[in-house]
């Protein structure tokens, strides 16, 4: 039974994630449509529910084109490199007290480490396409994701200091009374900004800046391979929103002791709020410039994140506040 679950579990998760991606894309288009005074997709299926299915179907039956001068091996490898880590990071995510696939001691570190592999996939894709726009997009992406990984990691150090563990389960457990968003508000802000940037979403969507680089690193990709890049992007939204929920919003813990809903539902509600926030920001913000992006990471986010660590360490010693930290 256990062995069966061991093999079946990830498959179910994959299906759930695929389902999420399908409807996350639809939800994004709907939400942005509503914000912009439109209805959004509403033609395919009732309320447009089958829109993404139709889009994916279209992508799957499209001709698989590889540019003549592209590096064929790398070109084919790159979508896989980009997608696999995005799915692998979900293994350590505690969706509720019961649902988690790998409860490893360094869960948080694992997430950070594995997610950075995607950068290589994107860079390889940009390079292998042998297209100038793709190359620029790939370069931007590499620079951006490496830069923002540092404040991202540093911003969660405050949480880690408080809990004293890198295990995501223990982090959730430590938030039974107070969610970390309150004592770690600085860390939270830095984390949200850095995570939006890691996700390559507006206002940090420079690698695929449409108005500048046409489509960025995946400009030459079409059909199935493009679908994989898309998939990776949205699986990361899933993963990053989960991580935000787990680290700062108390995971599956019910707020105000409202335990009439099961933990997993609370998780989904908080998770949806984070996802909605991402869509909302995308509908509002212009794109930041590439040099401002770098300056922002190194000159603003990094010092703030460092200061947050120091502050957390100091407050841990203040007798009155110590039990929050």
């Amino acid at each position: 039974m256990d062995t069966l679950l061991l093999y079946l579990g990830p498959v179910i998760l994959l299906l759930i994630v695929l389902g999420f991606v399908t409807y996350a894309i639809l939800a994004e288009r709907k939400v942005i449509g509503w914000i912009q005074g439109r209805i959004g997709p509403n033609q395919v299926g009732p309320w447009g529910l089958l829109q993404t299915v139709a889009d994916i179907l279209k992508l799957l039956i499209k001709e698989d084109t590889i540019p003549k001068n592209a590096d064929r091996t790398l070109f084919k490898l790159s979508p896989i490199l980009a997608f696999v880590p995005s799915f692998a990071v979900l293994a350590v995510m505690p969706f509720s007290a019961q649902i988690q696939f790998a409860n490893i001691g360094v869960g948080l570190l694992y997430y950070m480490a594995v997610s950075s592999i995607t950068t290589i996939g994107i860079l390889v894709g940009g390079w292998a396409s042998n297209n100038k726009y793709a190359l620029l997009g790939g370069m931007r992406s590499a620079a951006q994701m490496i830069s923002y990984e540092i404040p991202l990691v540093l911003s969660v150090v405050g949480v880690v200091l408080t809990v004293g563990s890198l295990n995501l389960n223990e982090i959730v457990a430590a938030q039974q009374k107070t969610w970390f968003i309150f004592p770690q508000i600085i860390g939270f802000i830095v984390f949200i900004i850095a995570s939006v940037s890691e996700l390559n979403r507006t206002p940090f969507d420079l690698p695929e800046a449409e108005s500048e680089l046409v489509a960025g690193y995946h400009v030459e990709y079409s059909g199935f391979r493009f679908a994989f890049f898309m998939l990776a992007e949205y699986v990361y939204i899933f993963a990053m929103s989960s991580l935000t929920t787990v680290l700062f919003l108390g995971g599956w813990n019910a707020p105000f002791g409202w335990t009439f809903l099961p933990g997993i539902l609370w998780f989904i509600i908080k998770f949806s709020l984070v996802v909605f926030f991402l869509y909302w920001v995308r509908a509002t913000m212009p794109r930041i410039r590439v040099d401002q992006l770098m300056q922002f990471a190194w000159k603003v986010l990094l010092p703030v994140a460092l200061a947050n660590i120091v502050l957390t360490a100091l407050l841990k010693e203040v007798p009155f506040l110590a039990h929050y930290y």
Partner: protein
Amino acid sequence: MIRTEEMLLNVGPQHPSTHGVLRLLVKVDGERIVEAEPVIGYLHRGTEKLAEDLSYTQIIPYTDRMDYLSAMTNNYAIVHATEKLMGLEIPERAEFLRVIVMELNRVASHLVWMGTYLLDIGAMSPFLYAFRDREQILDLFNELCGARLTYNYMRVGGVKWDAPAGWIKKVEQFTTYMQKQIKEYHDLVTGNEIFIGRTKGIGSYDQQTAIRYALSGANLRVTGLNWDLRKDAPYSIYERFAFEVPVGEDGDLYQKYLCRMKEIDESLKIVAQAVGEFPSEGKIMGKVPRVLRVPEGEVYVGIESPRGELGCHIVSKGKDKPWRLKFRRPSFYNLQILPILLKDENLSNLVAILGGIDIVLGEVDG
């Protein structure tokens, strides 16, 4: 051996933010632009050549297609030049209608600019909001002259249609509505720190350069020069209306944005005044011979289109067709400064600077 190499990037003619079919040959060193050369002509339709075989009335629909975002001002340029050469008197009601539609068209055009500019910079929603509000102007025009973009509304001697019943009321309602909407745009865009960061201090040039390059419209005023043909070489009945000419200081993109937003405000003021003083009755066509024979001579008139000075130069030999028709197309002049502005800029600024000039390729290519 490691060496760096300049890369030739071909931006356009099919690129999301070249506003049509402009092509830019950009030499980049990393993301820094070393040299940029605009290549135009992909939308050249030979309006000036075609006009030599067309009667003056027939040219009007062709002008609709030059600057297709403000066809009303284009219409006006050709009919105004023709009227000047013929020495025609225009009925007052027609003049009022002309001013109302031209200023509404200016609002519509600036809204498109604002929307697409924000889209270039990466914000999606302002584009849709701008189009939502512009839609109302287009509906007004549709009701007035039966078309949403290519109006073909003005005629030598007047305008084609009188305002339908209730139209003036609708225009009035729209001005109040739009004045409220402007505040929303300011909330959404003007104070946005990312937007300010993208535009402030970028792509600036001084007044002398602007004059030498014969820039016009907001591109010239943003350098601090108060130059608006509606005030400085008044045509139609603009002298009757009180409005201000917004100017900037050092010609950066943020001020260009502010200038154009204020111009929307001022245009709405003119429309409101014109609607208030709108004559309750009167003719919409002056005394015009059935076949337009324009006396021999030459005339140049410049009017203030949303993009700058739109000039019309007619040389007539006394026939019903112009001997030579030349349009001073403001986008064509304004675009010339682009290579200078782009030099040594970051590639991300390319779209911001190009968008800031506010070109319409139909006009650049004639």
